[in-house]
């Protein structure tokens, strides 16, 4: 791939990237979330068209307009979300769309035999007759790989293949990948787990913020070097004087464990406190339990252990109770969790108090007059650039949409603020506004927990930073002294490296 660029509204996802892979190797594509790895591979697989750049296969220029073109050229991709039909059997899924025929019927015998042949050759054992929904995730992944091999793919792109696997399944996958390579296949391995890169990859290409940082031979490199390439160099940290946090713990998590959507534990025995007037940052590579942590705190996910907010145990309390007792939440996804995009700005501003006086009369009728007044007030106070309180939330820019959430959450005098990726996708001005508001909360003695993938943001805002890795807290550092490199190592799970 040469000189590939791809723009999305407001971001350059890929900026003139050169990327090449040798036949018969496992090539890692590494980078933080949003670094542009998936975009680059989606271009190669024909899911996106590049704005600039060319793709060459075996020296010949290739036109890849859609996945069918890619498949014809021997390129296959296993997506993070498996593309399997749950009630069809393993065998039916593998041959789907390319069934062997005997007159007008599906030739089940030929189907079976060719799958057995493939699975023997590559050591990918599957029970052919079970429906997909009854087989474990690791086997589903094998089915995806078999699907590609059945279609004669030579170059396999695996998008974070280990994210959903247990450690044993990961070992199994690695054996398969090594076998595939010895059979002459080529593998591109998208990941942000450096240990895996060191274990099985031959080469590694690092992307950051849509740019190519470099390609290294894994044998000549180290995970420290890769970590540094991933997270980048230091930025100047603000030397702003802050008043010290109080010692009064407002939000306490005691031995919290919770299962993720796949049923595996995504959070394992997490304990920490956030004091009034303190900002605690949560760092970590995405997918290490951050989403689950936010959901547990919001009351959206069941958990084991105890969470107390201002000395009240939240275990059996409703989400409304949490809200009324001073928990404010800036959720991960602005569009699906933070806002009703089809609703008005005023409706979005009032959702956590519409039922209270003075917005609702005793009779249960909403007072639109009061609601509109309230909305106008917040629009001015938080500088929301919208066409009045009646504007539809979905028409606002990302920054202004986020301001609606900030206005709603911060105007209700919170005791604790949970901010998940509060500036994701925002431009610099909006980011500064959000940072300013969060620090203002700190000054108001609110206990702030901020979860972010942006290390600079964490360092700028936090007093302490905790690092999540595979659902555990693997380190706590002082935000005033920590370096990117230290955080990067902790995020990669290399706890020994930091004393």
């Amino acid at each position, binding site marked *: 791939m040469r000189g590939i660029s791809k723009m999305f509204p407001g971001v350059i996802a890929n900026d003139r990237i050169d990327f090449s892979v040798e036949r018969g190797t496992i090539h890692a594509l590494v980078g933080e979330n949003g670094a542009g790895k998936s975009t680059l591979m989606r271009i190669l697989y024909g899911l996106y068209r590049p704005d600039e750049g060319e793709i060459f296969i075996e020296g010949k220029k290739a036109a890849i307009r859609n*996945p*069918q073109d890619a*498949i014809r050229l021997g390129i296959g991709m296993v997506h993070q979300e*498996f*593309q*399997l*039909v*749950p*009630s*069809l059997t393993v065998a*039916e899924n593998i041959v*789907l*769309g*390319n*069934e062997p*025929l005997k007159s*007008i*019927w*599906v030739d089940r015998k030929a189907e079976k035999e060719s799958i057995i042949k493939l699975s023997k050759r590559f050591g990918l054992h599957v029970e052919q007759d079970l429906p997909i929904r009854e087989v474990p995730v690791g086997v589903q992944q094998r089915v995806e790989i078999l*699907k590609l091999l059945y279609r004669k793919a030579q170059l396999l792109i695996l998008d974070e293949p280990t994210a959903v696997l247990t450690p044993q399944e990961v070992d199994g996958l690695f054996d398969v990948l090594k076998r595939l390579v010895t059979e002459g296949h080529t593998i591109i391995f998208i990941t942000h787990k450096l240990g895996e890169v060191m274990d099985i990859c031959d080469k590694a290409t690092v992307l950051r913020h849509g740019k190519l940082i470099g390609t290294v031979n894994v044998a000549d490199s180290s995970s420290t070097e890769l970590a540094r390439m991933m997270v980048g160099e230091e930025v100047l940290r603000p030397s702003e004087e802050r008043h010290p946090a109080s010692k009064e713990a407002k939000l306490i998590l005691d031995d919290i464990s919770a299962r993720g959507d796949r049923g595996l534990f995504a959070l394992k025995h997490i304990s920490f406190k956030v004091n009034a007037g303190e900002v605690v940052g949560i760092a970590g590579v995405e997918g290490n339990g951050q989403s689950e942590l936010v959901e547990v705190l919001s009351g959206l996910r069941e958990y084991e252990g105890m969470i107390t907010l201002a000395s009240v145990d939240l275990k059996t309390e409703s989400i409304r109770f949490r809200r009324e007792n001073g928990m404010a939440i800036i959720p991960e996804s602005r569009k699906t969790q933070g806002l009703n995009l089809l609703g008005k700005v005023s409706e979005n501003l009032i959702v956590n108090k519409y039922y209270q006086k003075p917005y609702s009369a005793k009779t249960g009728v909403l007072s639109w007059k009061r609601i509109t007044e309230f909305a106008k007030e917040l629009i001015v106070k938080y500088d929301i650039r919208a066409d009045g309180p009646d504007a539809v939330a979905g028409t606002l820019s990302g920054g202004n949409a986020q301001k609606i959430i900030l206005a709603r959450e911060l105007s209700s005098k919170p005791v604790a603020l949970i901010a998940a990726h509060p500036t994701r996708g925002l431009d610099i001005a909006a980011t500064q506004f959000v940072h300013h508001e969060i620090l203002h909360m700190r000054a108001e003695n609110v206990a702030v927990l901020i979860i972010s993938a942006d290390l600079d943001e964490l360092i700028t805002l936090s007093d302490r930073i905790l690092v999540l890795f595979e659902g555990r807290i693997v380190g706590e550092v002082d935000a005033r002294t920590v370096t990117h490199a230290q955080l990067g190592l902790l995020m990669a799970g290399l706890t020994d490296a930091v004393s």
Partner: protein
Amino acid sequence: MEALTNVLFGTLRVSTPLLLAGMAVLLSQQINMLNIAIEGLMLAGAFSAVVVGAFLGNVWLGLLASMLFAMLFTLIFALFVIDLKANLIVAGLALNILAGGLLAYLLVVWFNTRGVYSPGTLDKLPLITIPIIDQIPFLGAVFSGHGVLTYVSWLSVIFTSLLLYRTPLGTHMRAVGEHKEAAETAGIPVRRVQYTALLIGGAMAGLAGAQLAIGDLTLFSENMTNGRGFIAMAAVFFGAARPGLTALGCLLFGLFDALQIRLQIGTGIPPQLPQMLPYLIVVGTLTMIAVRRKLKGTSI
């Protein structure tokens, strides 16, 4: 004994349109586009069977017309729900209302009659006597001597089952219905599969209508389907969209329909009461299924 054979024979007779309509709805449910227009399609089939049959003086051509006309109606439904992404329920109801109104209107315009059109000149579809089975005492009286579409309806169950579970097209239908994106990435022409499933169902719905119009009788009356399409739909839910179980559901509802017809004769019970029976059974069974699925914690 005679009462029993009568009821069982009646069951198979009244199940015929249910089975055909049931398989039509089943195919639509398999591609996840539940064909709510089924009543309208059946009416279209019934109407065209009588009208074309009488006009050409040939009941077989009437049968052919019922399939073609119902498929034409299906094409409208398919266009709306597949290409124009209309809401299934709205499109289905619209088509049902359209069919009801249009056909009533055509009755007035073409035949100057309201409600019922009964050409005296048209023969019913022939009854079929099955050679050997006919001679066996009980079995002969139950299984032999039905109209041709009754046997076709049993074949339609076998056809649907083979199609779905033995052919690539059927596998693609199931894949498209359950996980459209996965089917698409596997290179399946999703749109074509959806159209095919709906159109095959349309032909069956037409036959279901034809059975009502030229199988049992030789007349068309407004609303002669009388909710049978919806009963077929209930059977599909009863059978979790599997051909065998769905057919069983159709037969079960057919049995109660035949029973209520029997109960109306010489029992002195007001006819409205037994007439409610099949529908009560539908409500009862669906409730039971819902409760059971809820207990098992699974959907559909």
